[in-house]
C-alpha cells in the first residue's frame, strides 16, 4: 500500500510540475519572452509530453526564428493529436512560409493515424489470435461453426485488415524525420563536410532516414534530394 501511495504522489507531483511549466510558458509567451517560453515548454514536455506543449513550443521557436525546429514540434503534436484541425492548419501555414508542400494528406493517411501505433499493434495481435482461435478451435473440436463464431471470424478478419493496412501505411514513420536547420542544409555525397554537395534540404522539410554513419545521417527529402546531412540538423519524429 505504501508503494502505491508513493507512486500516486510521484505521478501527481510530475503532473503538477508539467502543468506549472506549461502555464509559465504561456505567461512568458504572452509577455513576448519567447526564449523563456521555449525553456518552460521544454520543461513541460520533459515532465509530461503533450500535443499542446509541443504546439506551443513550436510557436515559441517560430517567434525566435527557428522554423525548422518549430516544424518538428508541430509534426510531433499532430502525431499525438492527428485530428486536431488547428494543428493541421498551422503546420500548413508554416510549411507554406517555408516553401514546402502544403497539399492536405489523403483521407486514408489521416485515418491510419486516428489510432496510435501501439493501439494498432495491440488490435492486430488481438485480431490475429481471435481469428486464429475462431478458425482453428471449432475445426479441431469437430464442431460446425455457428453464427456467433462466424461473426467473430468476420470481425477478426476485418480488424486484422484494418490494423495491417494502418501499420503498412505508417511503415515509414520510424524513419521519418524533419530538417531542423534554420537555413537550407547542404546534403553531401558522403558522410563528410568535404564531400561534394548533392542537394539541399530545406528547413522543416520531411525526410526519410536511409543510413547513419558517425555524425551524419543519409536521408531522402520529400523534394527528392538524397544525401548525407549533419545529424544535428535532422531529427526523427519518433525520437522525442
Amino acid at each position: 500500500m505504501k508503494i502505491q501511495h508513493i507512486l500516486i504522489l510521484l505521478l501527481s507531483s510530475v503532473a503538477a510540475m508539467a502543468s506549472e511549466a506549461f502555464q509559465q510558458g504561456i505567461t512568458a509567451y504572452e509577455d513576448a519572452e519567447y526564449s523563456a517560453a521555449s525553456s518552460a515548454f521544454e520543461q513541460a514536455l520533459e515532465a509530461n509530453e503533450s500535443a499542446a506543449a509541443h504546439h506551443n513550443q513550436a510557436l515559441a521557436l517560430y517567434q525566435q526564428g527557428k522554423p525548422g525546429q518549430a516544424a518538428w514540434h508541430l509534426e510531433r503534436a499532430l502525431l499525438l493529436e492527428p485530428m486536431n484541425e488547428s494543428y493541421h492548419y498551422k503546420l500548413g501555414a508554416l510549411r507554406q512560409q517555408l516553401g514546402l508542400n502544403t497539399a492536405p494528406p489523403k483521407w486514408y493517411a489521416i485515418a491510419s493515424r486516428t489510432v496510435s501505433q501501439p493501439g494498432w499493434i495491440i488490435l492486430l495481435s488481438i485480431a490475429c489470435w481471435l481469428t486464429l482461435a475462431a478458425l482453428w478451435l471449432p475445426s479441431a473440436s469437430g464442431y460446425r461453426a455457428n453464427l456467433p463464431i462466424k461473426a467473430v471470424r468476420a470481425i477478426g478478419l476485418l480488424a486484422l485488415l484494418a490494423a495491417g493496412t494502418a501499420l503498412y501505411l505508417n511503415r515509414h514513420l520510424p524513419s521519418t524525420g524533419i530538417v531542423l536547420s534554420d537555413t537550407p542544409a547542404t546534403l553531401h555525397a558522403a558522410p563528410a563536410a568535404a564531400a561534394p554537395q548533392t542537394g539541399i534540404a530545406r528547413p522543416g522539410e520531411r525526410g526519410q532516414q536511409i543510413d547513419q554513419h558517425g555524425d551524419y545521417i543519409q536521408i531522402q527529402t520529400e523534394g527528392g534530394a538524397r544525401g548525407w546531412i549533419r545529424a544535428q540538423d535532422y531529427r526523427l519524429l519518433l525520437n522525442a
Partner: protein
Amino acid sequence: MRLLSLITVILIALPSALLAEFQVTARFDPPRIAMGDPSQYIVAITESGSSQPQIEQIKTLPISPPAGLTFSNGRTSTSQQANYINGSVQYSVTQNLLIQASPTEIGRYTIPAYAFDYKGERVQIPAATLEVLERSANAGPSRSEQVFLRAELPDSLYIGQTVAFDLKLYVAEDVRLDGLNSFDRSADGFTISERKDDISESVEMKNGHRYVVRSWPFTLTPIRTGQQEISFQFGLTARLPNQEKSRTPLGRSPFGGGLFEDFFGRTERLNVYTDSLSINVQPLPEKGKPKSFSGAIGDFAIEVGADSEQANQGEPIMLTVVLKGRGNFDRINGPDFSEGPDWRHYDPERKFEPADALGLSGSKRFDYVFIPQRSGQLELPATQFSYFDPQEKEYVELSAPPLPVKVAATTNSSVPTPQTPTPDMPASGLKLSKSLTPEEALLTLDYRPQPSRAVGYAILSNPLFIGLNAATGLLILGSAGALVRWKRHRADPSYPVRIAARQSLKEARNAYLHARQHNDFEAFFQHGTQAIRHAATLRTGHSMQSADCAQITALLDGQALEDCRKFLAAANARRFGGHSQIQLADAQQQLENILTAL
C-alpha cells in the same frame, strides 16, 4: 607657508595644463642631396597638453613646389608620446606630412614660410631649403636607381572592368634587401586585390644595370569614373653599398671588394614609391546596353543544361548555367529568370573554379532549381546573358534556347508543390471554426493540454506484450491439441488403448536395448516380449497383453512370422529353461524385424 607654496605651484601648472600648444617645423630630409637622390619635404605639427590631444587630419598644404622640383606621393603619419613629470602626465602628438621631393635640376630650392588653418588657429610654417649638388664622377648609382618600384597599368579602363597587373620591386644586384617592412597603396577610385605572399623573382637588365625583380600579382577594378590616381609604396630595409666606387682598374678588387663593400655598406630604411599613376576610368556606354546586362565585363561563353528532360509535377529540376572565359567573375551573379506560371525557381547556387591565381579567368557555375507547377510538355525558360567586351568596346548578348521538359502529373502528395492556403481554405483541407491568416494562426497558443497518447513502436519490445502474446498463442495451441484428442476419443474407442500402447512400446524398447547393452538375457527377452505385445496392441487397437503366441503370430507372415516364432521360443527357453541357444545380436535383429512388421 605651505598654502603659499601650493598656490604658487597651481599658478604655474594650471596654464600649461589647460592650454595646448602647437609646435610646427618644416624641413627637407636630407637637406642636401646629389642629383638623382630623393629627399622628403616634412612638415611636423606637434601638439602637447595635459590631456590627450585630438589631431585634425591635414589633407592639403597651400604650397606649390618651385621650378625644378616636383612633389609626389604625399602622406601623413602620426606619433604619440606621454611624459610623466612630477606625477603629472604630459601628452604630445606629432603629425608628419611627408611629400617626396624629386629635383630635376641642380640648385637650391626654398619653400618660403606660409600659414594655414589648423584646428581653428592660424599656424605658421617656417621656410625650408633643399640643396641639390652635382653628382660626382666617381659616385655610384643614385638611390632611386638602386631600388625602385614599377607598376605597368593601362591608361584607360571601364568602370567595373577587372585587369591584372604586376607590381615590381627592382633591387640592384649590389643591394641586399634585408626585409619588407610595410606595404601601402593609395587608390580611392579602385578596388585592389590583397597582396599575395607568393611572389616571383627574376633578373632584368635596365639602363645597363642588373636588377633582381620581385613581382606581386594584383587585380584592379575601377569603381569611379574620371581620372583616378593610384600609387603603391613599400617600406623596406636594405644594405646599400658605399656611394664611392671602390673598383680597381681591373674591375672588382681581387681581394674581395664585394665582401669589403658589404662589410662597410650601410643599412637603411627606405620608402620606395611607384611613379604617379593615373588611369582614365570611363563609364560603360548606354548605347546598345541589353536588358540582361548585369555588370559582366570581359569575354565569356555560356553553356546551359538541365539534369533531366522529364519530371513529375512538383519535382525539382536543376538548370545549370556555366559561364567560361575571362573577366570580373566576382561581380557576376548569373542570369535572371522571370517568374512564370509554369515554374517556380530559386536563387542559384554559385561555384567559381578559377583557372588562374587571380581568379580572372575560369568558369562560374550557377545551379537553378526549377519546380514545375503543372503537368504537360513544358519548357525551361530561355537563358539570356550579356557582357561588355572592353576590347571591342561593345555589348555582347549570349542566349540559350528554352529546354523542353515533359512533366507528368504527380501521384505523390509528399512532393513539394507549394500552394497558398487562404483563410477560407485551410492548408489541411479541414474546416476551421474561425478563419485565421497563416500569420495569425502561428501566433495563437493552445491553452488546453490534453493527456497525450503513446506513439511509436516501443510496444513491440515490451516484455509484457511479448509474454501475453506468447501465452495467448500457447493457450490456443494447447486448446487446439486438447480438442483434437478429445475429438478422436469421441470418434475412436480404441484411441486411448493405442496411445497407451505407443507409450508402453517406447518404454519397452528402451528397456530391451538397455538389457542388450548389459548382456542381460533375461531382461532382454522379457522386455522384448512386452514390446511385441505392445506393438500388437497398437496394431489391433485392443489389448494383446495376455495374447498367446498363436494370436501374435497370426498378425505376421513371411520372415517376420518365422522370426517371431524363433524369438518367442528362445524367450520361453530362457524363461523356463534358464538358457537359450540364440545369440543376443541375432535375437535383437529378429525383434526389430517383428516390430517393423507389426
